[in-house]
């Protein structure tokens, strides 16, 4: 559970997130909107990575309660660590910089990798993975983090269809376990099929509710127009 009360965020001179109030409960929620709508900024703010210029975020917001899957590119894929080492960093919240991995942590890491179909790749360097395999590694780390709130920024970009199906199944399981799963997504068909709730935004909130209603043609048009109007103001 995570609640936004009148949240605003600056991105340089822009107001990327404009006074949004919403609450995300257990289950799957999508964040949708045109490019430049502030979706990533909002997600990063919820993970404590972007300073709020106004409002407050409440609920489960501690570093051990929120797990974030950032857009691809945050991880230095050329750094020489193995898949298992990267997954093991999911235990950071419990062991920190100096603690020792417990037997339970080791078991959790192995189970997470098995669940993502990575058992044969424990000692493979991350530089030698395909995009889909790498996304499975990052999801294994999320499993090890075991957080009640899971934030995903475009988790299906550049992954193969088999990986996409496995990841979706995992999201549904997380939802069933009562975790709060919030994903920034572009694909409306996928949202309608798998995400019961959607927040549609264009810097400000356009709609929040059942996905079919939130993503109605009228709302989507409104989102585009709102953003274009703001961009137009900026240019003139």
């Amino acid at each position, binding site marked *: 559970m995570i609640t936004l009360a009148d949240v605003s965020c600056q991105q340089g001179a822009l107001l990327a997130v404009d006074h949004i109030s919403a609450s995300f409960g257990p289950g799957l929620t999508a964040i949708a909107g045109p490019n430049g709508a502030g979706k990533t900024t909002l997600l990063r703010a919820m*993970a*404590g*990575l972007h300073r709020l210029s106004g409002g407050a975020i409440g609920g489960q917001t501690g*570093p051990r309660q*929120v797990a*974030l899957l*950032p857009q691809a590119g*945050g*991880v*230095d894929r*050329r*750094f*020489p*660590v193995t898949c298992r080492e*990267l997954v093991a*960093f999911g235990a*950071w*919240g419990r062991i*920190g*910089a*100096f603690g020792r991995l417990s037997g339970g942590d080791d078991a959790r890491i192995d189970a997470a990798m098995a669940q993502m179909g990575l058992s044969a790749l424990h000692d*493979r*360097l991350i*530089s*030698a993975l395909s995009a889909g395999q790498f996304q499975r590694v990052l999801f294994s780390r999320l499993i090890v983090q075991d957080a009640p709130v899971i934030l995903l920024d475009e988790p299906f970009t550049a992954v193969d269809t088999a990986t996409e199906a496995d990841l979706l199944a995992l999201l549904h399981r997380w939802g069933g376990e009562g975790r709060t799963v919030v994903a920034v997504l572009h694909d409306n068909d996928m949202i309608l099929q798998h995400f019961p709730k959607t927040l549609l935004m264009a810097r400000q909130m356009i709609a929040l509710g059942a996905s079919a209603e939130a993503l109605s043609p009228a709302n989507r048009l409104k989102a585009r127009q709102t953003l274009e109007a703001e961009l137009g103001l900026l240019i003139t």
Partner: protein
Amino acid sequence: MTLTEILLEPFGFAFMRRALAGCLALSLAAPPLGVFLVLRRMSLTADVLQHGILPGIALGALLGGVSVLAMSFGGLLAGLAVVLFAGLLTRATGAREDSQFAGVYLMALAAGVTIASFQRNLDLTHLLFGSVLAVDEDALVLMASVSSVALLGLSVIWRPLILESLDPGFLQAQRGQGGLWHACFMALVVLCVVGGFAALGTLMSVGLMLLPAVASRHWSARLGGQMVAAVVVAVLSSTVGLLLSFHANLPAGPAILLVAGGVWLASVVAGPYSSLVHGGRKLV
């Protein structure tokens, strides 16, 4: 000349034994730091440091006399100041870090040479390029202490430093103090650069850190393997370089670095990983 005369006789001299012991100590500690510098794409940052410590060393000599300890202490302070100053400038102006570093190091080099030129008894060549004769008891103790502290320090910050290099966003989301680990790491680098200056000279000191590290990438695809390879290259280069310096009457720093550079070139050509000969080897 027999092989014994070439390889062993130089070490009959006490100053050569001290230089060798000091360089071997540094060879254990500096290359692992160099591996991280290379992986973090900060090789040139280290280059800046070697210029940055010069004014501190010269001031140390001016105020405390031409002793290794006084000069090293000055160098340490100057190195830390350069790292802090360049970091603050970058943060304050939003400019790219390398341009700030370039400004800082050019100024520091000019200031260092100016201060050093005030002092007749300070040999600038020795200061910049090192001399085996400069490794007295104090310098040896200094090199050994610096290496011990650097190795211990690196082992303490090992895990957070890896995470900060690999996925800084994740560390930040875990409130993991990324800046703190970066600062600790840079302090260790400064320490090692200063520790090496007596034997290797300020301009060459970073070489023992970086050349083995860039060579090590061609010997292993793993972090641990690269550490070991870098240390082996540094130990070999120090030993052979000191012999070369003795027989050919070369300054110690350049001699050691020329050997390390030779190893690096050979590794680029024929090392087992991503070299010209084995370019396509899978990193599995």
